[in-house]
């Protein structure tokens, strides 16, 4: 499949306010030289712990955050320097679903207004036409009876319904690329499965491509075609779903997989866990960022950054071990 969206050497440094009289300005290296290419129609998972840079990467790809350096392409066109006018047109095609549906919806906008808002922004002036498109979208995402819910306000909705409104609003301009940032993290267990099913169904019906950002590897395994693992601003492993879960290569990926709780008491066993916690992205360790916690670390690991290299079929890993 052709590449839909691509980033090369993407970097994002956020300045942090230093202590009083501190001479050197400090930066959080949120995204540190990331290459990523997402094919049309695929679900690429971006997984990692808090502070790994996965949300920033997602936002950079659709230009919600300006990169410090690097280049972003959408359908082969360089969108890194897109001026405001063209960026607005792009917004109809690339959309985002946020984690918390409650804070993503204005409490003063009815469901109909919220979902119709992007259409109004993108030039659909006719009210009746807009309502028709909104009702159609609401039915697509399972907000029924649509006519009844159209007039409701966010506080009158359940958590699952709110997330459906957020999804409908993201899809109403018929985008082809969606960045979904932990879309089910706030939802209850029984609601999560419904949202995942819906996302899968909409992808097939509307020909969507997803970047699915998650900290939950079990969910990534269920939904994604390929998965990238991030650690302290870098992609450390990128592989197809089957490769990543059956033959993880990077020690960090292995540690993450070992730590996932298993909903089956028969699977209980002691876990092989790395020591310590994810270090600060202000002053990250030298070389491979994971080396201070890695059980296999060698002297070379602290000297230079290991590049992502082929370790199998469509399988990249940034580890010098075999």
């Amino acid at each position, binding site marked *: 499949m052709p590449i839909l969206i691509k980033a090369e050497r993407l970097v994002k440094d956020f300045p942090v306010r230093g202590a009083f009289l501190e001479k050197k300005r400090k930066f959080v290296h949120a995204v540190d030289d990331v290459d990523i290419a997402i094919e049309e129609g695929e679900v690429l998972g971006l997984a990692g712990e808090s502070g790994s840079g996965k949300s920033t990467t997602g936002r950079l790809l659709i230009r919600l955050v300006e990169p410090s350096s690097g280049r972003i392409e959408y359908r082969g066109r360089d969108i890194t320097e897109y001026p405001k006018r063209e960026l607005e047109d792009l917004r109809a095609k690339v959309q985002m679903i946020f984690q918390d549906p409650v804070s993503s919806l204005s409490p003063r906008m009815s469901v109909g207004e919220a979902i119709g808002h992007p259409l109004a922004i993108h030039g659909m002036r006719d009210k009746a036409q807009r309502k028709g498109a909104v009702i159609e979208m609401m039915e697509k995402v399972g907000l029924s009876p649509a006519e009844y819910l159209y007039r409701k306000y966010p506080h009158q909705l359940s958590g699952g319904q709110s997330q459906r409104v957020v999804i409908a609003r993201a899809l109403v301009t018929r985008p082809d690329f969606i960045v979904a940032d932990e879309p089910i993290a706030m939802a209850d267990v029984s609601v999560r499965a419904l949202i995942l099913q819906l996302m899968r169904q909409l992808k097939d019906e509307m020909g969507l491509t997803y970047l699915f950002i998650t900290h939950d*590897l079990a969910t990534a395994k269920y939904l994604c075609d390929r998965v990238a693992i991030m650690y302290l601003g870098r992609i450390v492993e990128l592989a197809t779903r089957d490769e990543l879960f059956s033959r993880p290569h990077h020690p960090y990926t292995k540690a993450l997989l070992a730590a996932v709780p298993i909903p089956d008491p028969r699977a209980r066993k002691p876990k092989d866990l790395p020591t310590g916690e994810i270090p600060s992205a202000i002053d990250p360790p030298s070389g491979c960022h994971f080396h201070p916690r890695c059980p296999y670390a060698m002297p070379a690991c602290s000297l230079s950054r290991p590049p992502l290299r082929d370790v199998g079929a469509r399988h990249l890993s940034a580890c010098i071990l075999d």
Partner: protein
Amino acid sequence: MMAYGSGDPILVIQKLSIAYPISIGTVRAVENVSLSVRKGEVLGIVGESGCGKSTLGLSMLKLMKPPGRITSGSILYKGLDILSMSDRALLDLRGRNLAMIFQNPLTSLDPLVTVQDHFIEAIRVHEPEVRRKDCVARAEAILADLGIEARRLSEYPYQLSGGMRQRIMIGLALILHPDILLADEPTTALDVIVEAGFTELLMKLKRQYDLTVLLISHNLGLVAEMADRIAVMYGGRIVELASVEDIFSRPLHPYTRGLMACVPNILLDQKELLAMPGSPPDLVDAPEGCPFAPRCPEAMDICRAKTPTLAAYGASSTACWLYERNA
């Protein structure tokens, strides 16, 4: 007071109901819950948000937030009725006999107080005569059990990582050697590797301190790894109570079965997750009948007319008319 051995009912909840009166009616957060906690076990209380699991947990320390109040029932700790205790006696019970850790360690620790002073306060509330120096010595000893260096005693909460803060929380809870530890979503704020480390630490401390643990969580993976028995709550009621093995391999209640089918398991190759339609019930003046009936694929007429009570079925207990009929 009699000595309680392993397996004895150390905490007995009988027909407990808790209500929150609000402007549009009464929220029946916990409804007719009976539960015996056995000494030495890890009892998991699972359910989705709003099912009443946290309210039930807080009631065991008589800590419900106003306007919540207990409308009926009793809670007996080693035969003593917690609900009729004086405030003075309750203060003594909390921390010394029953201790609690919460979801978010950052909001549970005082940002202006050092780790050491947190420990000193925790000890002196109960034992005002203990000298500072001795408090510090006890804090140092417990820090060693937690895998935290003693130098951290002089630091403030902001200087600690998330995992370390949660370990300090558990240290504060255990400093007076309580029998029962109540952990309400203790790992929800933690990342997966830190969570796994914390789980292992908690199980180690459970053995070392001879604890009974009540683990309140929405995370089925977590309870599968820690609990001996599990109570499943829905709509303010316990709908199933069984050993962890039975809950996962032979779930009885249609809600429990639904939960098991919709959880992703990384060890499996799941093509489809079976989703549960509908949403959790509104607990404001809930009608008579099983709270799960509107979402239940197997609901019968009786389910909407009459509320089933928890009854034994084989080695498990469930509140479901499907089994009453066959029993």
